[in-house]
């Protein structure tokens, strides 16, 4: 079943690099990460790549495959035509470290700036009570595997280094939304914060982030739009603002 297929793999570092051509054996059922591993085991032992789980669970193996941001471990070779050359490049939005590995520290910095969960006062560990329907909205966002493909895709930062400072990106909008929708989170200004500090206003709802999310999180519809809408409501209507906290279930 094995056949030789054509690959172009970007190799280099922050000082530059180029696409190198390889003809690599491909077997039935293989994914792009298998091919990268085969290259490591044969021609290029020092080819740099990140991976861990090989099952779409850890979000390590993000790269661009024929220009599309993807998880290499979930991109099957059978999704390409037999004679198609497959081009593998590092994520474009983050600085290259080496070969297919980029410096994703932008994301860790934004994570560190996003206010954490605020536990409700006076509720002892073991006494948290929440209904399944109420946790499900936040749970959708907690499926995030931090592959940062959405961050990589969003046009606000993709070719605009200058926006990075003020813009946290879709991954951290869903984090803010997750906490906003958390039935017991004690902080009441998640939306205002997203607007004022995370740069939610830069987002013009193109939905590109949602399209690339391997966890199929509806980033735009379920997080960004509700966060935007309610920021507007609250600004003009103090009653709505109060109500949204008071009527949240606590038992």
């Amino acid at each position: 079943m094995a056949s030789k297929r054509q690959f172009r793999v970007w190799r280099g570092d922050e000082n530059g690099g180029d696409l190198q051509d390889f003809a690599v054996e491909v077997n039935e059922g293989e994914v792009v990460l298998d091919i990268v591993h085969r290259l490591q085991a044969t021609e290029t032992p020092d080819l740099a790549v990140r991976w861990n789980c090989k099952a779409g669970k850890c979000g390590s193996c993000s790269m661009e495959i024929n220009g599309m941001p993807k998880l290499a471990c979930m991109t099957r070779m059978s999704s390409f035509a037999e004679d198609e050359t497959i081009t593998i490049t590092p994520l474009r939005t983050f600085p290259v470290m080496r070969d297919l590995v980029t410096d994703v520290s932008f994301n860790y910095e934004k994570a560190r700036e996003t206010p954490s969960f605020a536990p409700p006062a006076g509720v002892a560990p073991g006494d948290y009570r929440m209904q399944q329907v109420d946790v499900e909205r936040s749970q959708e966002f907690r499926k995030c595997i931090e592959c940062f493909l959405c961050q990589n895709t969003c046009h606000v930062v993709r070719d605009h280094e200058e926006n990075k400072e003020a813009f946290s990106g879709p991954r951290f909008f869903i984090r803010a939304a997750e906490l906003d929708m958390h039935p017991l989170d004690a902080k009441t200004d998640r939306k205002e914060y997203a607007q004022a500090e995370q740069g939610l206003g830069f987002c013009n709802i193109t939905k590109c982030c949602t399209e690339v999310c391997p966890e199929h999180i509806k980033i735009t519809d379920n997080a960004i739009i509700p966060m935007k809408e309610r920021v507007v409501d609250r600004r003009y209507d103090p009653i709505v603002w109060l109500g949204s906290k008071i009527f949240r279930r606590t038992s």
Partner: protein
Amino acid sequence: MTELQRFQYDVVVIGAGGAGLRAAIEARMAGKKTAIISKSLFGKAHTVMAEGGAAAAMGNVNSNDNWQVHFRDTMRGGKFLNHFRMAELHAKEAPERIWELETYGALFDRTADGKISQRNFGGHEYPRLAHVGDRTGLELIRTLQQKIVSLQQEDFAATGDYEANLRVFHETTITELLLTDGKIAGAFGYVRESGEFLLFETPAVVLATGGIGKSYKVTSNSWEYTGDGHALALRAGATLVNMEFLQFHPTGMVWPPSVKGILVTESVRGDGGILKNSEGKRFMFDYVPDVFREKYAETPEEADRWYKDADNNRRPPELLPRDEVARAINSEVKAGRGTKAGGVYLDIASRLPAEEIRKRLPSMYHQFKELADVDITAEPMEVGPTCHYVMGGVEVDPDSTQSRVPGLFAAGEVSGGMHGSNRLGGNSLSDLLVFGKRAGEHAAAYADSNGPSTVAQSDVDAAIAGALAPFTNDGENPYALQHELQLVMNDLVGIIRTEAELAEAITRLAAIRERVSRVQATGGRRYNPGWHLALDLRNMLVVSECTAMAALERKESRGGHTREDHPEMAAEWRKVNLICGLDGEKVTLNPQPLPPLPPELLNLFEKSELKKYMTAQELEGHGG
């Protein structure tokens, strides 16, 4: 001159999985300046892959559950080879550790009355696993990661520096522990990105490096699982216990070949999935061993009733402990009743409505759809055993988690004793939390009265030379050598073992040892996976030697150690731990008596049950 960055810490935690993060949280909360080091990015450690859940006797679903029942199940699962004290602490403290996660922001699935929901799993008498769908490990690691961030935010508010008291050094690998006067004094390693070297001077090191599964060809484990912590401990003078016991998870994917070994969560069976051979027979009823006979259903009808009415029916045999199920699948395949790809069928499609399957097992649905083109709501999965978890690990004091080396602590999969000869599903995630916390607490207390530490320059120079050696070696490509090692372990030290094969394995490993010392890295020092593997190989090798030697020595079959030539469980062997150490380069193996169960724990069991495991003399302490 090779550049070296130096750091001073009170506590250095090696590993950023559940155990490491929980330890670091505790050490930082005790006021200690703490570093966390991990080979991968922050949030990507193996724990992220755990699916099914975390076992804790909270009694939310069945109020009969309590720590005593959990303790009993754990000891049974481990065939009474567990260190009783670890199993006891684990069963007692797991609920608090889970509840604590909610105060960090975790969102577990809920019961109808709003508590944390709990699911059934193999070997657990009651529904006991706190879970979030089938991505519990992700929830656990993200929660701990976010708690770390929140502590860093507190430090930022107080000092203007996020990293004042708690810093994560990710994509950094420790290659040596350094001692001064027989005590821990530091840890040495390299940064993957730059290839630069780091020295952490510290009185206390917590090992939380996880397992060793990458020494096997078919495994659910990632590249990180090269037994680094096990090997670091050995080289520092600590000891390993239970290394012959490896858990082969019964259900790994078998097709397509490139994903062979990837895990299919036990929750599939916990939620009703059944195993069938190629003749369509539900075969597990033929494999219930005597020690478990009373607890498991004899007919499919009874087994099916159990899902609705667990109090009046016995459990389906698909939910036997993992070692039993893995051996059963192995036997079916060997007897020619396997699938073409060498597995058996795991069927959930005919058991639950499609909607329900997608809801309860979303990531399994996704995994099979994307990787195998199989729709698990419509067709059965093909599964077979995969190397999954090492019960063996660093021998520690149960209460403090300290090893034989002062200042060296270990928690999580890298430590040994807790699970005996076989771990129950779900008992790892709770183990990480219980003993991670203890490790952090005791490492912090130890640092109070020890340190600051200094490391001898000659030791640092030796560590640098060792790390750079592959660049000047003229031996083989590390990938080829790793592949060979994996085959030896897979074929000769696998699920079913024999004296002749184990002896051959030891001979072959000795030959590999010589080649490992000459393995060559090409390219430069920056993010060079070939170099990294070259350094990992010596760890994989020494740990494999421990496993093979202990497996040859233990002449019985128990849990994750099955000897075709000694198929019975032997009460005399239950009293023995095999302890691996290192004498220079040579692995040593010594028997050591297991501490006896104190009467109050012994009395938690019926005498008739203990008789299946223990000698008459041991039962004298039993009250009933």
